[in-house]
């Protein structure tokens, strides 16, 4: 048998053995027995010494070819077997992907906070500052500087928790307007502010009344602020909180600290303006009070009403949340039932 035939036979047998090998151990054994230092191919190569010098390169090349073929076949077979093992293991590892994920601790912002943050962000984007004042206020800032002198009949409209004759729980966040107006340097630019916070009224708690609730007051004072600007600002607010298809309309009202004073309605979100029992068939829902700042308020804060003017508005996040989500009892906001708190989690 020529060396070449011997190599051909070795290749044939080797490839068959490799193909038939059942596991990685077999493959390894075949590799050692065929290609090892004591293996037949090494043997054959050793026998090349006896060949004619002209034959040697041919046989050498063929022997390398055979060795490469076998090496490739071994590698391929090893990969096949490894894959089979891996696949078998992975098959065993299969999970029920429908089982629930492991719970994580997750907290949510209060729904009122969400609304306040949303209002803050809107007005920050329009160049307003956010200011918060004391919750225990002086009568002077809560009422007098808001153009509500001691005997003003409108004081009956808001029942107040007094601590002493001059100290009270603020009934609105507008005292911060007076405090800021007093200090603001108009040579540095207009005053644009909102003041969010907790306010208190002497009410008995029931589904629609709470002795504690929230308010966000807004104030813009400059040389050329118009009522049309107020209308536009309230529209932006309504669009932000409720959606772009909501309209705002103004109605005359009365607040001692604004003149003209208006009440703002927005399109009823229950019926889209067609009329329903939520909006008492008007298609509109009252959401906030606003107006052009009363000259007396400016004067009392040391601002010249002949030069400066502007608008103010006050919104109730509690009322907004009740309207927006159909919350039927304002006390829900302050009793902190976890089942209530975790309902307002949509962030997308």
């Amino acid at each position, binding site marked *: 048998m020529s060396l070449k035939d011997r190599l051909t036979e070795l290749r044939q047998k080797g490839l068959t053995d490799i193909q038939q090998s059942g596991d990685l151990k077999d493959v390894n054994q075949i590799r050692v027995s065929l290609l090892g230092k004591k293996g037949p191919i090494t043997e054959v190569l050793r026998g090349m010494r006896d060949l004619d010098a002209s034959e040697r390169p041919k046989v050498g090349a063929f022997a390398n070819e055979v060795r490469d073929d076998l090496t490739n076949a071994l590698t391929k077979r090893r990969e096949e077997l490894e894959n089979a093992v891996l696949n078998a293991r992975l098959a065993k590892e299969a999970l029920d992907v429908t089982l629930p994920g492991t719970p994580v601790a997750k907290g949510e912002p209060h729904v*009122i906070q969400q609304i306040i943050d949303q209002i803050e962000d809107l007005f920050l984007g329009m*160049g307003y*500052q956010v200011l918060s004042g004391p919750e225990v206020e002086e009568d002077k800032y809560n009422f007098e500087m808001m153009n509500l002198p001691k005997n003003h*009949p409108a004081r009956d409209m808001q029942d107040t928790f007094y601590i002493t004759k001059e100290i009270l729980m603020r009934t609105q966040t507008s005292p911060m307007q007076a405090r800021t107006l007093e200090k603001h340097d108009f040579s540095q630019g207009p005053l644009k502010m909102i003041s969010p916070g907790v306010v208190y009224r002497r009410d008995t708690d029931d589904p629609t009344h709470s002795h504690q609730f929230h308010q966000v007051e807004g104030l813009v004072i400059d040389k050329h602020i118009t009522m049309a600007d107020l209308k536009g600002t309230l529209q932006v607010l309504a669009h932000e909180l409720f959606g772009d298809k909501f309209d705002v309309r103004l109605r005359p009202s009365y607040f001692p600290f604004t003149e*003209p004073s208006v009440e703002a309605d927005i399109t009823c979100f229950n019926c889209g303006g067609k009329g329903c029992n939520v909006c008492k068939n008007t298609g509109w829902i009252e959401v906030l009070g606003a107006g052009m700042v009363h000259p007396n308020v400016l004067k009392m804060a040391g601002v010249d009403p002949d030069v400066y003017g502007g608008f103010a508005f006050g919104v109730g996040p509690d009322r907004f949340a009740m309207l927006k989500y159909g919350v039927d009892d304002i006390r829900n906001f*302050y009793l902190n039932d976890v089942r209530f708190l975790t309902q307002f989690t949509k962030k997308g």
Partner: protein
Amino acid sequence: MKISYNWIKEYLDLDVSAVDLAEKIERTSVEVDSVVKPSDGLKKIVVGHVLSVKAHPDSDHLHICEIDVGDDEPSQIVCGAPNIAEGQNVIVALPGSRIADNVKIKRSKMRGVESDGMVCALQEIGFPEEVVPKAYVDGIYVLPADAQPGSPVFDILGMNDSLIDLDVTPNRGDMLSLNGTLRDLAAIYDRPVTLDTPHVTEAGEAIDSQLSLHVDDSLSPQYRMRLVRDIKLAPSPMWLQVHLWNAGLRPINNVVDITNYIMLKYGQPLHAFDYDKFSGQDVYVRTAKAGETLTTLDENDHELDPTDIVIADSQAPIALAGVMGGLSTAISDQTVTVAIEAAVFEHDHIRKAAQRHHLHTDASQRFERGVNQAGVQDALDAAAQMLNDLAAGTVQTGTAVGSNHQPEAAVIPLTLTHVNAVLGTDLTMDQVSHILETLGFTVKVAGDDLTVTVPIRRNDIHIPADLLEEIARIYGYDNLPVTLPTGRMTQGRLTPAQRLMRATRKSLEGLGLNQAISYALTTEDKAQMFLTHPDSQLTKLAWPMSVDHAVLRMNMVTGLLDDIAYNTARKVKDVALYEQGRVFYRQEGQDRPAEEEHIAGAITGQLVPAAWNQPAQDVDFYQLKGIVAAYLQDMAVKGDVTYEPNTEMPEMHPGRTADILIHGHKIGFMGQVHPTIAKRFKIGATYVFDLNLQAIIDMPKQENQYDVISRYPAITRDIAMLVADDVTNEQVVALIERRGGAYLQSVKLFDVYDGVKVPKGKKSLAYTLTYQDKHATLVDDAVTQAFEKVTKRLQDELDAEIR
């Protein structure tokens, strides 16, 4: 105030429905609470003429009546009303009719007797009881004799009218009358309106010889009386009664009804006295004297206050001025001489008197807001003439005038430029002056300037801004342009404190706590628990609504415990809450408390819910400590955070409470609520923290910075040791850190054991020490050396037994 649509239409030519009119009023003038047509929802209710009344054989109170309801045959109707009688015209609900509250009337049998309908009281067809004439409150109503049997009752009773209920704001006293409303509507619809001008026929003696008024004009700037003799007291005619009950007032008799009618029409409250009951001819308007009392018309006794304005005769008060008349001079069946008062009273006095005596009347409501001071005599004359027309009275000659101060009309300068600058409009001078003129204002125009004279009746208009409101509302708010403020730019940004508060909330939410907002007003007891400011005094409300919300909180924890109690009572067992808010510390001698921002949390049950692959793990001290530590790390306050045991807080578990210090300054506490306190709140084991957020805000912060990550490998060594029970982890770590050598990077506790294998009084602690040289590969020998050194120190200084 309820105003009649039909009454308005008598004066104003309007081609709009009641609902549209109400909408217009709401958009332009004052809020409208409701528009009600009383006959809505009612049907087949007709006039019946009672032909005969017989007693029911099987009842002691039912009657069997034959009633002509306009059909060929009379109907037999069983009726239980005590006042039904032959010859009356009554209200009959026919079979198939619908009466109040959507009740359907069917043909029926009552105690075996067929009844073809029902004879109705006014209440049964929707009248509120308080407007039903007293004579008919407990029985059926008797219609006028000329009512046609079979015809619907609605027109007779004024029930086809529409009643617009105005919610008049405190500034618009003028809208509390027909005349005021008509004037506003004339401007809104730009139509002319002519109001009635009263003419009195005087016949009797001069009033001055019969009545003498003595008025303190600082209390009553206008005070007038007329005297009408030979009155025939009777029920008012139907049309007048209809006006009253449709406005929500009960018809009483022609004299009282006339005064109420004039009030509705002119907005001027009047009072009718029985002149013959006066003690003498002198009437005084003064403040009450000490000890004086008055029994008012509603038969309530009042002790008068020295600031109450009273009307008095020479003996005693006879009326609480502007609020309610006195019983002693009330109009009664015997009255033949009536003194009618028309006046203006100081609104402050009236407001306080109404509050003090809990008498909020139609009169006080109007005086508080201010009546038309230019129309007092008109109202008085109109009333006197009606007493002549409807009660056959003789109006005595002249008016007694006790005081007569006519206010000056306000004259307000305005410019067209200003109007447009404030409203953002482009109105012309013609538009502006036309609007003001339709409101009844007098306008003088010169170039850009307007000079506006305001009629006395509009006592709410004083300054240019008031005129702007008039112009804006009549022009229409819908017609205003929609713009945003322009002008100099401003920067909108949160302050560092506001940013930190937002970061605080985000951090704690990320750590698993839900934001709570609790009541800041609480009980005295709760306010003083969990105190971190032991010297703080309670801040109490002067007039709390309830003891539950009577004082300001001085801690944040009790509010959260209330929340947990609320959840626990509703079987919600796992609660993790945080709250950011203020506590109120008051120093002795000060009225106003300091407000300190706090951040607090409370957890009960499990923080992470148990699941199929996660065992239940009740919250414990260390879980809460992990949250607090992670939060404080987020806030990046400079300085070490340390925890010191606090055994002194009475509301906290003495062995499971720690003060939290930053750089040695106490900023709060954390730990387990004392079991007896938890029991009082009816809650389970609860862990809480309460931190002074203001302190955290004020403390210097670390900045984020980049540290090169070492390319050289780290080497670790573990050490386990037995130490005495009272040696703390903090002591061990501090010692290792102090003596660990230059390459020690970190010390991490990985095991604590004090089980059976550990001698009594000892515990086992195990730490991993990590060494690294940032600039070179660390030599093992160097680590071994450092480790041996620290081991020795632990043995020497803490008596540690290395295992």
